[in-house]
């Protein structure tokens, strides 16, 4: 059991009691919170889909699928985001994939930096389908991806290649382009964004 052996400990004990009361009243102010890189990236990946239009809308009963190659932390964070949310009016499914054979039914593919060695191969395989490929690598757009995540001054930013998106048959909204750090291939007019933000 606790024994208050000296004055300092007694002071601490009474201090703790006071703090508990005070906490109980729910004093306080809004939080400025610091997030991990992966959680911010996951939020971006999730949100991008709302600013992109796919050529043919699949059966709405089929889940909207985000495939992740690599980092498990992002998978977990995306799965959290996917609960109770929809994209393009469809329930969202997040899947970790290990190879290209698994991405056929995906609308979004995120390739983590772990796969930097064969990024070009991966992107060119995926790029033949209507998949929004998101890379996370310096010069990532050079591999042919549509969106690339960047770290700038301890913040997550992104760049967009409209050329790559068009090749994949995807239309990217101007709103997304306006926030991008860099746009490769010009900010040509795009259809308005759709559905669930």
């Amino acid at each position, binding site marked *: 059991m606790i024994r208050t052996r000296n004055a300092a400990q007694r002071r601490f004990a009474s201090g703790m009691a006071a703090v508990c009361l005070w906490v109980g009243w729910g004093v306080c*102010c809004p*939080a400025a919170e610091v997030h991990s890189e992966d959680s911010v990236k996951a939020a971006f990946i999730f949100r991008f889909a709302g600013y992109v239009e796919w050529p043919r809308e699949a059966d709405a009963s089929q889940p909207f699928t985000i495939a992740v190659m690599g980092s498990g932390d992002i998978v977990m964070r995306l799965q959290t985001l996917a609960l109770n949310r929809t994209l393009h009016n469809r329930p969202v499914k*997040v899947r970790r994939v*290990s190879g290209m054979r698994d991405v056929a039914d995906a609308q979004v593919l995120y390739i983590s930096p772990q796969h930097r060695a064969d990024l070009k191969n991966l992107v060119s395989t995926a790029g033949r389908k209507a998949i929004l490929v998101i890379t996370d690598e310096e010069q990532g757009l050079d591999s042919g991806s549509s969106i690339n995540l960047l770290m700038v001054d301890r*913040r997550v930013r992104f760049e967009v290649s409209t050329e790559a998106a068009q090749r994949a048959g995807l239309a990217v909204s101007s709103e997304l382009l306006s926030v991008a750090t860099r746009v490769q291939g010009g900010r040509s007019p795009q259809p308005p964004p759709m559905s669930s933000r």
Partner: protein
Amino acid sequence: MRLFNGRASHCAGLLCGLAGLATMAQAHASEPASEDLAVLSLEELGNVPVISVSRSPQLLSGAAAAIYVISHDEIARSGATSLPDALRLAPNLLITQQGSSNFVAAARGLGGKPEVQNFSNKLLLLIDGRSAYSPLYSGIYLDAPDLVMEDIDRIEVISGPGATLWGANAVNGVINVITRPAYLTDGTSVTAIAGPREQDLSVRHGGEINELAYRVYAKGFQRDHASLEDGSSAEDAWYKGQVGFRMDWSLAAGTATLQGDAYSGLEDQPGPGKQAISGANVVGRWQTHTDRTDLQLQGYFDHSQRAAPMDGGAFVLNTFDLEFQQGMNVGAAQKMVWGAGARLHRYDIANSSTLLFLPSERTLQLWNIFGQDTVTLNPALRLIVGLKLEHNSFTGWEPQPDARLAWQVNDSTLLWTSVSRAARTPTPFDADVLEKVGSVDFLTGNKDFESEEVWAYELGYRGALAPGLSLSVSGFYNVYDELRTIEPASGTVFLPLRWDNQMQGHTYGMTAWAKWQIADWWRLAPGFSLLRKDLHFKPGASGLTGIGQSGNDPRGHALLTSSMDLGPDRTLDVSIRHVVSLPDPALPSYTEITARFAWRVSPAWELSVAGTNLLHASHLEYPATTGAEIQRNVVAEARWTPR
């Protein structure tokens, strides 16, 4: 090792794997949920500062505690083949190898003195939320828990009390080993390690069936004996085999995990026969997240046993554990975590003629309830207050409070301070033991044995000094009371002796480490720990076996690791450690080097050469004859991971 071991036959100590609080790591984390981010606009998202450029989870980066996270990569690059090897990577932890299979872990001192039957018992080890702390003698059998090294996601080493979240016995620290979810370990991986003194083989296969990811593994090794001072064998070679699995389901409502291991090992000992250890466990966990709350339910069963044929001592221990916890946001400024748990230990000890437990068969109950609140006082200041009430079979209720203040001075600087209490609760070894010398009762347990306790006061800094250079510094002042001593059981005759709580005092010290990315291809990681002790007996105590019984602790130890990428497919890692001299019994300071060179010759094949304790043919980490000479060990390793 210790109890039921030939060499230290009636010294005590036992093995096992036990209870724990599940992924409290997550609860402990002070990072907000990703949920909060989903409501931000793209522009706002781009302005959210992030705390790390690391790819590994950094949930604890904002935590107000002295935490060192050993990453998956660090373990892989170090060439560690066992858990104790991997634990050497943490500068806030001291690992002492006393024999081939005998490892002792301590943080902030009080690391035990086996000569007087005091064992390192103020550090908790949890493996995916399952405790590996022995409830029989209090301490960790580090020869029992093992893992396939590449399945470990990270090891969080927290120095300082962690009792509010993790429970009793987290007095001077907590080690949380967290393995990768099965969906991160798909495919096949075969690792073979061979050298004159060590041979290991591990095979793992993982895959996915719809929403279910799984892996299964098997691992086996043999380690040669350590040696005695005259160069002869310490007769402590050991052999171990282990199999296990993990399954993770991602379901719409949450995630479910089922995992388990089974192992069996033999350890040579002087004299006839071998010490046999074995165990098995299964852990189930359910986690679900909604907008405002996280829920986790975890249960496990753990069986372990150990038998030393030489003196006939043995035990069987079964542990059942159930834990629940919930985390939630309360208003804009508060995050609360609360939970409750219950644990049952059933054990049966086969008494030897010199070491008896009375009763030898017993069921111990442990239950707890805890709560912790994180209050954001203003954008830069967080207050974390918590309390765990834990009830044990020996001393009843143990309150273990904790208060922390974290000040995020700017993007790159965190200052924190804390006050907390933790208890090392009694075990059958404190309360029920009877040791005999011939027919004479030599030492008896004490039914009124109190918990050893600490009030810890800590102060810390963590931050980035420059791009690529991060630093963590923490200091502590620990006030201990009721530390265990040996006293005559009655005032009139010397024997029998009895355990008592007649020591108190304080310790203080600091730990610091840095990570310096000198260039893209080169990282240096220096770190050190310092310790000073000022303990004394209470008035009227016998003073038997001296103040030194609290632990034969060095006044400091240091670690410097260099990690180099030599081109895209070659790595070289070298680690130097220095441990200051031990006082009583005395041992000079020592320095040792561990190194590994690895070459990925093709996408599927990695070859490496690794050596531990390279500076000397053999060295002592603990004075003889308790400690044996640990020999230089060089191995070649091949890993095959076909696509």
